[in-house]
């Protein structure tokens, strides 16, 4: 094995590592014959490596520099050093690196070139350049700095502000340029931005007394680490001046307003004096005249003040309008407050009298409380009655349900003749179920009433107790009575529910009644049907008789239920009357 081949092979071993490289890697000998090309390179040429080895590299890539002294491989082989160039192959922009290949003796035997398609990179760079152009056009200083405050970029406007050009300023410390009050302090927006990793805005005074409003934004590298900051300034000197002027105007207007207030006071006093003096004799006439002069002088002052004020009128007109609106609100509110205070006063007076009366009334409250207790007792008793009745309804509904079930069985056994009856039996069953549900609702309502009644009992007791301790605390008695009243309301609410529920159950039961009437007619029908059916006369008659018996039973039960329901309604009405 010759040395050259060995070298060649060693080189190829290394070249294997290059297979995965996302660029074309090509090895050539001194005569520009391709000795190796990686997959990526072959793909770029829409071929495979084995087909390309042995061909001239300049026939493959056909860049602008091929077969010219500018060829990086030519340069690399000549200079024995790496050479880099950017070139073009058709529309593709290529970043081309050529490195010499040596044998063991150090003699050049060829070159390796590395070609990367940088078309998209170029486009990106173009875009970036355009974006930078936008920054250049911004009529505000924009400065980018690194962590050490070295300027890495400054736009035209920024540079012209300090009387220089962008190129000359790059690399200088930003604080040497703008010399603001914040520079090299922790107040610097860029320092804060880099620390907090968020944009920070601040105000300061820059070189030449210029007021600036500036914002620092952190710059990150791809890993998200802070590598510097961008700051941009806004000159707010004019704004500051305007603000100061406004401040002064406001202060001035305040002073004038104070003066006017003082003068108004004087006028008022003077007027009072005039009143007193006017009632006195001619001696007072002179004083009056003096006073009049004072008034006139004061008026003059007022006039002067008004003159000054008129200057301010334009600036303050808007404020005055707002103030007037607010004042009218205040006025309304005040009127209301006054009314309330008046009412409070009356109430307070009434209260003191009522207090005296209250002591007398305590006795009455005591009596009323014990009356309430008695009434509540009565209510509880009648509630228990209603509860019992509702239970009865529930039971009877169960009975009807079973009768209906038996009627259904009879109907099924009666065969064809019983079919109509089966439908009726089913309807009765459903109605009984609904009546049962309504009765259950009644029981729930009654439980609610019992609870509310119990609470009312407790309330009336506490009202009674408070009345007993009346000398100590009238309020408690009143509160107790109020709570009692609320409990009463609650009971009234629940009784209403109960009434609805009971009425509902009565309605269902009435339906049962009407259905039963149909049962009677069906029974008759099946009776006649059975008479006609000669073969099964005996059986049918027995069945229909039983149906008739069942129907009669159902009817009896329904009558019972309706009576019970009527009782419930009466009871409910009774105890509603107790409360109302």
């Amino acid at each position, binding site marked *: 094995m010759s040395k050259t081949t060995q070298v060649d092979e060693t080189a190829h071993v290394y070249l294997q590592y290059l297979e995965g490289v996302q660029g074309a890697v090509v090895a050539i000998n001194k005569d520009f014959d391709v000795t190796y090309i990686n997959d990526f390179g072959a793909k770029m040429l829409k071929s495979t490596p084995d087909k390309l080895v042995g061909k001239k590299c300049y026939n493959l890539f056909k860049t602008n520099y091929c077969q010219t002294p500018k060829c990086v491989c030519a340069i690399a082989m000549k200079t024995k050093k790496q050479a880099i160039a950017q070139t073009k192959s058709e529309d593709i922009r290529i970043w081309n690196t050529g490195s010499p290949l040596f044998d063991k003796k150090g003699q050049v035997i060829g070159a390796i070139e590395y070609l990367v398609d940088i078309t998209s990179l170029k486009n990106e760079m173009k875009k970036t350049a355009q974006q930078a152009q936008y920054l250049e056009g911004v009529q505000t200083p924009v400065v980018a700095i690194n962590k050490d405050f070295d300027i890495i970029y400054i736009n035209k406007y920024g540079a012209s502000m300090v009387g220089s050009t962008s190129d000359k300023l790059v690399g200088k410390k930003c604080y040497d340029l703008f010399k603001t009050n914040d520079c090299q302090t922790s107040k610097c927006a860029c320092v804060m931005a880099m620390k907090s990793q968020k944009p920070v805005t601040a105000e300061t005074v820059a070189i030449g007394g210029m007021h600036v409003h500036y914002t620092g934004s952190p710059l990150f590298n791809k890993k998200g680490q802070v590598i510097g900051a961008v700051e941009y300034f806004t000159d707010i000197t004019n704004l500051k001046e305007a603000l100061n002027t406004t401040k002064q105007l406001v202060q001035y207007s305040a002073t004038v307003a104070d003066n006017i207030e003082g003068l108004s006071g004087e006028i008022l006093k003077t007027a009072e004096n005039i009143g007193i003096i006017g009632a006195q004799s001619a001696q007072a006439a002179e004083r009056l005249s003096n006073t009049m002069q004072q008034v006139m002088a004061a008026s003059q002052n007022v006039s002067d003040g008004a003159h000054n004020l008129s200057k301010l009128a334009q600036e303050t007109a808007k404020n005055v309008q707002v103030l007037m609106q607010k004042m009218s609100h205040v006025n309304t509110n005040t009127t209301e407050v006054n009314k309330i205070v008046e009412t409070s006063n009356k109430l307070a007076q009434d209260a003191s009298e009522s207090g005296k009366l209250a002591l007398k009334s305590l006795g009455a409250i005591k009596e009323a409380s014990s009356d309430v207790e008695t009434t509540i007792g009565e209510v509880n008793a009648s509630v228990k009655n209603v509860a019992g009745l509702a239970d009865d309804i529930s039971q009877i509904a169960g009975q009807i349900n*079973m009768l209906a*079930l*038996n009627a*259904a*069985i*009879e*109907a*099924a*056994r009666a*065969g*064809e003749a019983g*079919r109509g009856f*089966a439908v009726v039996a089913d309807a009765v*069953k459903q109605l009984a179920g609904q009546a049962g549900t309504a009765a259950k609702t009644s029981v729930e309502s009654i439980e609610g009433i019992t609870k509310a009644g119990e609470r009312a009992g407790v309330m009336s007791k506490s009202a009674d107790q408070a009345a007993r301790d009346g000398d100590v605390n009238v309020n408690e008695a009143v509160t107790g009575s109020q709570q009692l009243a609320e409990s009463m309301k609650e009971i009234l609410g629940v009784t209403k529910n109960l009434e609805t529920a009971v009425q509902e159950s009565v309605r269902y039961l009435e339906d049962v009644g009407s259905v039963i009437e149909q049962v009677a007619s069906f029974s008759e029908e099946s009776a006649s049907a059975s008479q006609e059916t000669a073969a099964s006369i005996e059986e049918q008659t027995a069945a229909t008789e039983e149906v008739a018996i069942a129907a009669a039973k159902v009817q009896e039960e329904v009558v019972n239920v309706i009576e019970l329901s009527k009782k419930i309604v009466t009871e409910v009405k009774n105890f509603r009357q107790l409360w109302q």
Partner: protein
Amino acid sequence: MAATGDLQIVNFTVGDVNYGVPVEQVREVRDVQAVTPVPGAPSYIEGVTNLRGQIITVMDLRKRLNLEETEDGGEKIIVIELGKAAVGVVVDTVTEVSTIAGADIERHMQATKRLDDYLVGVGKQGENLIVILDLAKIISDAKEDLPEQRKTAATKSPTAKKIPAT
């Protein structure tokens, strides 16, 4: 009337299971009422009761089917007709009389022979499966255990052997 093969049943429950019995077997449904126990009867015979003048035997289906015993339930009696006689069968609830289409009944369950005898089939009603029992058959097979036949059946019935001769 219903198509051929359709079955009218009385639906009832024992425990969580829905059962049915062909309506022809049922005379009526009643609330449980006072039962007079009969000494020496098998455990599933609750005793006898007076049904409008007719004395009938009352059987606890739960015990007859060897189902788990509970505190609740046993609220209704289904009166099954056996010719002129009648037997009350205690169940938990009786819900309705319904019709199951013949196509919805599986009549040959291929269970044990004894069970197949008692089973009319298993019917579908919506989501529910209804175990349709031949209560008349169940009662008839149990009849040898009934009080009035006790003596004659004593040699046949394994249960009856335990009953002391009176």
